[in-house]
C-alpha cells in the first residue's frame, strides 16, 4: 500500500506503507544513528515526534525486547529508506514491521530520506503527516501547520511509583519520559531506585530521605512544564545530590532562572562530540533534543558550563556551584549510542556517597 509523508512546507514524499496503517500528524526530526532503531522507537523523548532515519537500511536485525527503552513506544511515525526484507539476529523476537504493527506505529519505506533530511536541515524540524490516503495537499496543509504537541510529559510518565534494584544508595528517579537505561545504569551500580511520576512533589522526596535524585530525559519544550519546574526550585535547595539528563537538565536550568530556546533542527544522533571543559577531554555522545539552554542566560555565580558541543558550541552540561547538582544535555546512559560517558553515573554515585557520609556525621 502506498503511503505519504506530507510536510508543512508542501513537500510530499511517497513510499510503501509498513507497520501500522494509521494517519498521524506530528513534528518530524531526523536521526543519524546507524544502529539502534529499536532504542530510538522506544525513547519516550520522541513523544509527539516522528523520526526519519538517515541510515538507509533499517530493520536488518529485527527487534529484540531487550533493546526496548520503555514498554510502550511513543514515536508517532517512522520513515525509512529501505525496510530490510529479512531480519537476522540471534536475539530478535520479531521483525521491525511486526513490532510496529503490534505497537500501532505507522511507517513509510522507500522514501528518499536524504532529501527529507536536507529539507529539515534547511527549514528546521517541521510538522508533517503520515498517511495512506491520497489527499490533495492543500486540503490537509492547514491541519498539519497548526499541529502543536501538548501534555507530552504527562503522557509519558508513569502513574504510580515503583522500585527497581537493591542496594545501600536510595535514588529517587523522576520519570518525565524516562529511558529504561537510566534506571539500569543506577541499578547496575547497586542503587535502590524509586521511579516516581513527574508530578511527585519535592516535599515527598525530601521526606523520603533519598540519597540522590535523578531527573530523566523526556519529550517536548522544557518551558511547558511550569509545575515541575516549581518543584525543582524547592528540590534544588534541599541539598540532596541531583543528576539530570536532557529534559531534566533543561528544567533544572529553568528552575535556576535561566532560559531555553528551540534549536533549528536539534541534535538527534549517536555521534555528537562534547567537550568536558574541566579536562578538555572529548566524548562522543548520544543526543536527542530540539531545545537548548541559552548560554547567555547562565548566571556565572550559580553554575558553570561543564560540557559544550564541539561542533556548534552549545551548552551540553552544567555544574552548579552552590548545590550538589550536575546536569547534562546528552545521554550518558547510551542505548542507542556510545558508552563513553557512563562514568557520569559513577560520579553521581560518588556524590551520593559523600552526601550520605555527611548526613551520618
Amino acid at each position, binding site marked *: 500500500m502506498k503511503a505519504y509523508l506530507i510536510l508543512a512546507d508542501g513537500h510530499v514524499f511517497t513510499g510503501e506503507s509498513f507497520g501500522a496503517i494509521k494517519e498521524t500528524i506530528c513534528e518530524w526530526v*531526523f536521526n*543519524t*544513528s*546507524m*544502529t*539502534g532503531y*529499536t*532504542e530510538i522507537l522506544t525513547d519516550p523523548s520522541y513523544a509527539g515526534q516522528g523520526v526519519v532515519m*538517515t*541510515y*538507509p*537500511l533499517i530493520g*536488518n*536485525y529485527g527487534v*529484540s525486547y*531487550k*533493546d526496548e527503552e520503555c514498554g510502550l513506544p511513543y514515536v508517532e511515525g517512522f520513515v525509512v*529508506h*529501505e525496510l*530490510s*526484507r*529479512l*531480519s*537476522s*539476529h*540471534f*536475539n530478535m523476537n520479531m521483525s521491525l514491521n511486526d513490532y510496529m504493527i503490534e505497537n500501532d506505529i505507522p511507517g513509510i519505506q522507500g522514501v*528518499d*530520506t*536524504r*532529501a527529507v*533530511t*536536507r529539507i529539515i*536541515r534547511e527549514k528546521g524540524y517541521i510538522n508533517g503527516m503520515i498517511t495512506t490516503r491520497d489527499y490533495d495537499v492543500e486540503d490537509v496543509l492547514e491541519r498539519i501547520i497548526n499541529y502543536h504537541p501538548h501534555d507530552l510529559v504527562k503522557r509519558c510518565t508513569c502513574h504510580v511509583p515503583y522500585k527497581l534494584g537493591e542496594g545501600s544508595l536510595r535514588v529517587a528517579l523522576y520519570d518525565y519520559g524516562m529511558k529504561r537505561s537510566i534506571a539500569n545504569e543506577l541499578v547496575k551500580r547497586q542503587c535502590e531506585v524509586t521511579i516516581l511520576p513527574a508530578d511527585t512533589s519535592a516535599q515527598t522526596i525530601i521526606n523520603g530521605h533519598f540519597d540522590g535524585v535523578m531527573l530523566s530525559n523526556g519529550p517536548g519544550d522544557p518551558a511547558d512544564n511550569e509545575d515541575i519546574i516549581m518543584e525543582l526550585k524547592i528540590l534544588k535547595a534541599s541539598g540532596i545530590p541531583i543528576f539530570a539528563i536532557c529534559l531534566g537538565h533543561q528544567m533544572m536550568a529553568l528552575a535556576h532562572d535561566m532560559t531555553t530556546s528551540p534549536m533549528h533542527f536539534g541534535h538527534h*544522533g*549517536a*555521534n*555528537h*562530540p562534547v*567537550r568536558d571543559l574541566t579536562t*578538555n*577531554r*572529548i566524548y*562522543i555522545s548520544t543526543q536527542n533534543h530540539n531545545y537548548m539552554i541559552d548560554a547567555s542566560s547562565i548566571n556565572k555565580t550559580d553554575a558553570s558550563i561543564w560540557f559544550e558541543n*564541539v*561542533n556548534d558550541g552549545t551548552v551540553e552540561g552544567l555544574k552548579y556551584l552552590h548545590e550538589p547538582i550536575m546536569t547534562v544535555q546528552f545521554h550518558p546512559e*547510551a*542505548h*542507542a*549510542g*556510545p*558508552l*563513553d560517558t557512563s562514568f557520569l553515573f559513577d560520579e553521581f554515585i560518588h556524590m551520593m556517597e559523600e552526601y550520605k557520609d555527611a548526613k551520618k556525621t
Partner: protein
Amino acid sequence: MPKRHDIHKVLVIGSGPIIIGQAAEFDYAGTQACRALKEEGIEVVLVNSNPATIMTDKDVADHVYIEPLTVESLTMIIDHERPDSILPTLGGQNGLNLTLALEDAGVLLQYHVKTIGTDTATIRQAEDRELFKELMESINEPIAPSLSVEHVEDALEFAHAIGYPVVVRPAYTLGGTGGGIAHDDQSLHDICSNGLRLSRVNQCLIEKSIAGWKEIEYEVMRDHNGNCITVCNMENIDPVGIHTGDSIVVAPSQTLGDYDYQMLRHAAFNIISALGIEGGCNVQYALDPQSLEYCVIEVNPRVSRSSALASKATGYPIARLAAKIALGYTLDEIKNAITNKTYASFEPALDYVVVKIPKWPFDKFYDASRQLGTQMKATGEVMAICDNFEGALMKALRSLEQNINYLYKKDLSQDSPDELRRKLTHTDDQRLFVIAEALRHHISMREIQELTKIDIWFIDKIRHLVEIESRLRNGPLTPELLLEAKIREFPDCVISELTHMDEKSIRQMRIDNQITASFRPVDTCAAEFAAETPYFYSMYNGEQEASANNKKTVMVLGSGPIRIGQGIEFDFCSVHCVWALKEAGYDTIIVNNNPETVSTDFDVADRLYFEPLTREDVQSIVDIEHPDGAIVQFGGQTAIKLTKDLMEMGVPILGTSPDDVDAAEDRERFDDILERCHIDRPHGQTVFTVDEALSAAHDLGYPVLVRPSYVLGGAGMEIALNDDDIVKFIGHINEDYQEHPILVDKYLPGKECEVDAICDGHGILIPGIMEHVERAGVHSGDSISVYPPQKIKQTIKSQIVDYTDRLAKALHVVGLINIQFIVYDDQVYVIEVNPRSSRTIPYISKVTGVPLVKVATKVIMGESITDQGYHYGILPEKETIAIKMPVFSFEKITGADISLGPEMKSTGEVLGISRDFNTALYKAFEGTGLPISQKENIIVTIRDSAKEEFLPIARKYYEYGYHLYATKGTCDYLKANGIKSHQVNRMNESSPTLIDLMLSNTIDLVIDMPSRDNNFKDGFTIRRFAVEAGIPIYTSLDTANALINCLTRHKDKPDIIDIATL
C-alpha cells in the same frame, strides 16, 4: 594543546614494493600524511624503495630517498639528514618492523631521533603476540586461547590440549604470510614449520579456531589527550577463516544491533587506551553469531588496508589525522575538511552502504589454487558506494573488470545441486556466484548459511538480485521493473542480455521514464551539515546533488584495482595529470573505484566520482558534468578501453587520437606504419585458429611468441617451442580473449630496450633509454631495467631515438608513447608500441628529474615541449645509475609457477640507485628483500641447452665461495669443467633429495633454468618449494649473472642519493 615545538624534521618510512598484502594503500596514507606534515611547516625526509609511488615525489616530501628499507641504509640516511623525529606508523608492517629494528640497533638513541605518534613500546605490545595477550588479559578483553611457540612440538602439544582446528599465525609477517588453519597433526606440522621459518623472530601463535564467527573490524583514532573516536566499523561478509584482505567487506556493519556495535566499539577504546596509541588503529574481532561472545583477533597500531578503506568509505582522512596527532594536535583542534564546519573529533554518519571486493590474480595464474584462507591472495580491491547493499555489490562486481556484470557464471550453471553444495563448503573466489547459482537451484537460504557460515541477511540480498534477474528474464520489462533493476544497479547491458532487448532501447526507455542516475556526496555526516568537498557516488531514484560548473572541465579516468600488469604506476600518472591540469587552470574530475589509491583521495581532483569504470557509469557522469574533454592515456588499459565509448558520448579525447591508438594496436595498420618508417620488427602473422597458428609458426620457424592483441602486461603471452605448445597456448588465449586476433611472432633472443617519450606533434622528448638485464622473452615488467643503458652502443642509442621520433610522428602522438625494442645482432627491432603512459613513467621521471606526466599533460592541453623549457631529442644521460627490479609475491599464491616468461608475474618493484653500476644493482637486490648471502650454499638445476652458458656464471659463484649443489646431470657437467659441486638426489630418488636440502634451512639461493620436457613437473615442484620455504630463486641466467657480479663488485660503503636533487 598547541602543536609540539620539538618537531621540525620528520623521517617517514614507506612500505616498500607492492606485494600481496601490502599494496597502494600505504602510498595513499603516506602521501596524505606527508602533505599534512608539510602543511605544518615540517621538513619531511621520505624513504621508500618503491619508485612507482606518489610519496617518493619531490612534490610530496622535501628529501626523497629511494633506497632499500634496511637498517644499514636507514642509518646512513639518518646520519646524513639528522631528522629529529620518525613517524613509523605510515609504512605498513615494513615501517613498523624497520623502526623497531632501528631502535634495537641503537640508531634512534645514537642520533636522538624520537618516535612520534605511536611509540615503539606500544608497537611491541601490539605486535608481540605474548605481550599483547598479557595486555588483553589485564584489561579483560577476550582473545581466543592461544600459545606462542618456537618449536613445532610445542604447537602439537597445545593443539592436543585445545583441540583441532587451530590457526597458525607467524609473528611479524604481513598479510598472514605463512599462516593457515590446521585440522590435524600433519597439517599443523607443515604450516607451523613453514611459519616459524618466515617469522622474523621465529615465533608462531597457535590459536583455537573461531572459523565461522562473524569478522568485524573497527577503525579508531586516539590523540595524546586520550580522546577516542571510531571512524567506522566494517563487517566481513565472509566469516572468520578468510583473511580480511580476501573477504568481501561491507561498511558499516549490517547485522549488528546497537548493543553489539557499542560493545565492540567500547572494547576498541579500551584496547587503544591501554596500548596508548596516538594515531589510527585497526581492531579486528570475531563475534559469535549465536551469542554476545567475542574475541579480539588482532590490533594494527598503524594505518592499514582497512584504514584506507575506512577513509574512502567515510570521507574521514585517517592518515592525515594520524600525522596531525603525531605533531601534538588533539582531535578537536583539527577541522573536518569535508564539512569545514565540524571537527575531527566526531564520528562519521553514513547514509549509504559501501562494499569492497578483492581483486585476485587467478586470471594470471590459472594453475594456482583459488582456495581462500588466512593467507591473503588478492593483489588489489575495488570499492563501490550505493544507497542499498545490492546496488553496492553490483557496482563493485563490475568494477573488477572481469566481464562479469551480475551474479552469474555460465560454467556454474551446469552444476548439479550436490555439486553446488560441495562448492559452497569450498571457500574460494567463486563463492558469490556459487551462492547465486545455489539459490537459482532452490537450495534453501538456511542450508546455504549452514554451509558457508555467511549471515542469512547477506544471502537474502543475493537472493533479491537473483529474483530481479529472473523477473527480467521472464519479462515484460515495465518501467517499474526497470526502475527496480536500476535501483539495484543492474547495468543496461545485463538488462539487455536478460530481456533480449538491445541496450540502446533500454537506455531510451530509462530516459523516457526519467530513470537516470543521481549523484550524492559522501559528506561524513548524513546530510546533517552542508558538505563542501564534492566526493560523489551514483544511485537511482534520489535527488540529484551534483552539478556542472562553467569552468573548462577535463575528466581523467583512473586505472581501477591494482592487478598484476596494471599497478600503482598508473595511479601515479592519473594523479600527476590531475595536478598538472589544476596548475594549468582547468577544473578536474577523476573517476576511479580503487579505495587504496591517492587518486581517490577527496582533495586530489576538483570532483571525485567513486564509480565503476564502465561505459554506462561513465555516461551517467558525462550526462551531469558535460566535460570539455577526457584524458585516457594515463589510466592504463582500463581507461583506454573506454575511449570509443567516450567519443560516442561526444566527449573529445584529449591527446593522441583514438584512431592513432588503434593504428598502434592493429597489426596490419601498424605494419604499414613500420614499413613507411623503414623500421623492422620480428616477423609475424595474425591468426584466429589453432591451424592458422601452426602454419604461421612453421613459416616463421620455432621459437615463436604467441599473444592476444589488445592486452596489457603481456597477459596470455607465451613462447612456443613446438606444435604442442601452440595448441595449448591458443586454447588458453581463446578462453579469455575470443574477440581479438592472436599474434604469432618470431622470437628473437636479443637485448631488450625501452623508451618513454613525449611527442607534441612537432618533436619528441626522451628523458632516457632503459635497458633490460634479462634477454627478450621475459616480460618487460618482470625484467631488471637499467638507466642509463650500460651495454648498448652509441649508434644503437641514436637509432632508438630516431625510431622513436619517426614512430611518434607517424602515429601523430600527442602526449606519451612507450616503445619496446629488441637489439639482436646489432639490429634494432620494434616489438611493441603503446601510445600512452607506461609502467616505467614514475621510475624514469624520478631518475631523470623530468616530470613526464606534467609535461605530457601540458602538451595534451596545447603547450609545446619547447614552451615548457625542454629541448627536443634525448636528454644527456645522468651520472646516477638507477636500476628497477621486479618484486614477486609467489609465496602467497599456492600453485603458481614462478618461472618467468612473456606474461608478467611481478606485483611490484624497487629501485637501486648509485653512481656505481654494481652498487646500484646490489641495492636493488637488497631492496627486493633478498637476504644477501650468509650460509653460502646454492642449488643449481640447469636444463641441458643452457648448461654451457651457465658455466662461466657457475664459476663466478664458485670462486666467490659458494658451495654448489646440483642433481647428477648438472653436477657431472660442472665437475667435468673443473667446478667443484655436490651431488644431490632428484625428488623421486632416495633421501637426501633437493627438497630435503631446501628444508634443512641452509640454502641461500636456487638457480633454476626450467625445461619444458619431462622434468618440467619436477622443476615446478622445486620452484614452489623454494618459494614457500622463503629461499630466493632465479629462473633466468641473466639475473643470476647480475647477482653474482654485483655481489663481487659492489662498493662496501654505498652512496645515498636524495632524488629530490636530481
